[in-house]
């Protein structure tokens, strides 16, 4: 009965130009897995300014956006280079206001999750059993308390988060935006539903039939998506389950690169400003490099969705 949905495919350049504006609140999610790095780089290339960047685990891509001069404010629950070291630019901004101060709003992981849940569900607040006795509410006035109407219990709450745009990376989508993710699915669905606009960057755009053979695999339905961008290897240096592995060497090298302002500027000039787009970045890394991150096959066993036999 219904025909295929509208075609929302765009280039990454066009999608960022259309949906990311100076001063916007931009959420980039992906918990270690499927980090939307290529989108972060394109935002830097297009010279966006005064962004409020929202990301639970502010890691390398955030440090790069800070170095690119795009970010006025950061909303996050973890600011570090995974377990591999520090973020040099972020620490200079926070510890020394160098080159300028960074407005920083700090939460715990579940605090961020609950902000997305409230945003996606259009709730005025979301309760959670964290923060009691922590110093965080003292430095973050958004973390407040509510009394339960079912007893004398009190509980902390966080307000909704509704980004102007959320950007996620995923394994695959159809042209209308039905997006499938496997492996770690994180907070991606909630971050998309909480946002005004959503860009989904994928390893590959696939035929409608592929998506429709397994509707339970669709983590984000088309009605929540505004742009679909095909951008293979767009999550590097993070990984895409079943597509390529994590570039752990790059993670380990980042502390050294970002600690030194000149080294960092040189890296940005060469790898972000010096590449026209992510395809060039990928080509510059070279085939041999990518062969080192290649993964083998571990296929899921198919399930039967069934087909009606009667008339």
């Amino acid at each position, binding site marked *: 009965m*219904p025909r295929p*949905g509208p075609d929302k495919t765009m280039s990454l350049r066009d999608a960022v130009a259309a949906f990311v504006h100076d001063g916007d609140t931009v959420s980039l999610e992906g918990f270690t897995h499927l980090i939307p790095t290529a989108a972060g780089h394109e935002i830097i290339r297009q010279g966006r300014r005064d962004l409020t960047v929202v990301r639970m685990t502010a890691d390398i891509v955030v440090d790069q956006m800070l170095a690119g001069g795009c970010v006025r404010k950061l909303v996050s629950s973890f600011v570090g280079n995974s377990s591999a070291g520090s973020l040099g630019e972020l620490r200079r901004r926070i510890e020394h206001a160098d080159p300028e101060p960074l407005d920083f709003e700090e939460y715990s992981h579940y605090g961020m999750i609950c902000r997305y849940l409230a945003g996606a569900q*259009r709730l005025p607040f979301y309760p959670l059993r964290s923060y009691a006795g922590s110093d965080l509410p003292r430095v973050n006035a958004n973390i407040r308390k509510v009394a339960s109407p079912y007893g004398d219990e009190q509980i902390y709450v966080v307000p909704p988060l509704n980004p102007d745009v959320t950007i996620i990376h995923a394994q695959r989508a159809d042209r209308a935006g039905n997006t499938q993710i496997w492996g770690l699915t994180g907070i991606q669905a909630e971050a998309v539903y909480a946002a005004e606009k959503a860009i989904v960057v994928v390893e590959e755009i696939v035929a409608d039939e592929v998506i*429709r*053979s397994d*509707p339970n695999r669709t983590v984000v*339905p088309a009605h929540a998506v505004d742009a679909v961008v095909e951008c293979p290897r767009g999550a590097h240096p993070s990984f895409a389950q079943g597509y390529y592995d994590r570039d752990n060497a790059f993670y380990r090298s980042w502390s050294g690169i970002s600690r030194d302002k000149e080294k960092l500027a040189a890296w940005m000039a060469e790898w972000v400003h010096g590449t026209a787009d992510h395809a060039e970045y990928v080509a510059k890394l070279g085939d041999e490099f990518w062969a080192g991150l290649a993964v083998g096959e571990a296929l899921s066993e198919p399930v039967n969705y069934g087909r009606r036999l009667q*008339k």
Partner: protein
Amino acid sequence: MTTSSEILSVVASRELAGKRTVFAGIGLPTLAASLAHLTVAPDLEIVYESGVCGAHPSHLPETIADAVLITGAEAVLSMPALFGYVLQGGHIDVGFLGAAQIDRWGNLNSSVIGDWQSPKVRLPGPGGAMEVMANSREVFVVMRRHDPRSFVDELDFCTSPGPDRALADGVTPFGLGVTKVITELGILARGGPGEELRLVALHPGATVEQARAATGWPLKVADDVTVIAPPSEAELRLLREDVDPERVYLR
């Protein structure tokens, strides 16, 4: 010979012009939405209460959870995602509802006839109707029977309140509540909070007096009550040949 189901489906389908998402139960709403998809709303997506988005059913579904809605669908969501993110999140343009009783403000009763504590008739209750009312941008109601037992001066029980009752309870509503009621006699409509349902259109042959007599409150009537164009041949052909060829719901 055009049946009443056909007329209601066609008239409801026209009201979906330009809409993008509709929350629809099985029966006439599905027929209306499917027909609209082929005519006035090519990008329309039907979202089912069971969690199915972008269904491509091989057979006409018998329930909102029919297996044929799932196989080949674009997405299937859990209940928290469907009700929390899609519906309460504000992604539904039009919700379709039915009810045992409706009042002039578009408030609905689907719980009981009589007193809730010791009802004369226990009806199925809210289901998701309260959420559809509270969270859709607007709500269409299809009522086959237009009579004073269903169009009442005062509800026996308000299951699914419109925005006027929400406001009186201190809560600012999201959507407009019921904007269209499509019946065997014609169409009642209202713009949103503060407005009563008014008779705005009649099927050919139906009269304002019939509508007044069939309504349990003093029915307001628009200055320019239009006559509803009967289903066109193209609309009927699509409905009969493409949407419900087995005439499962086109009784």
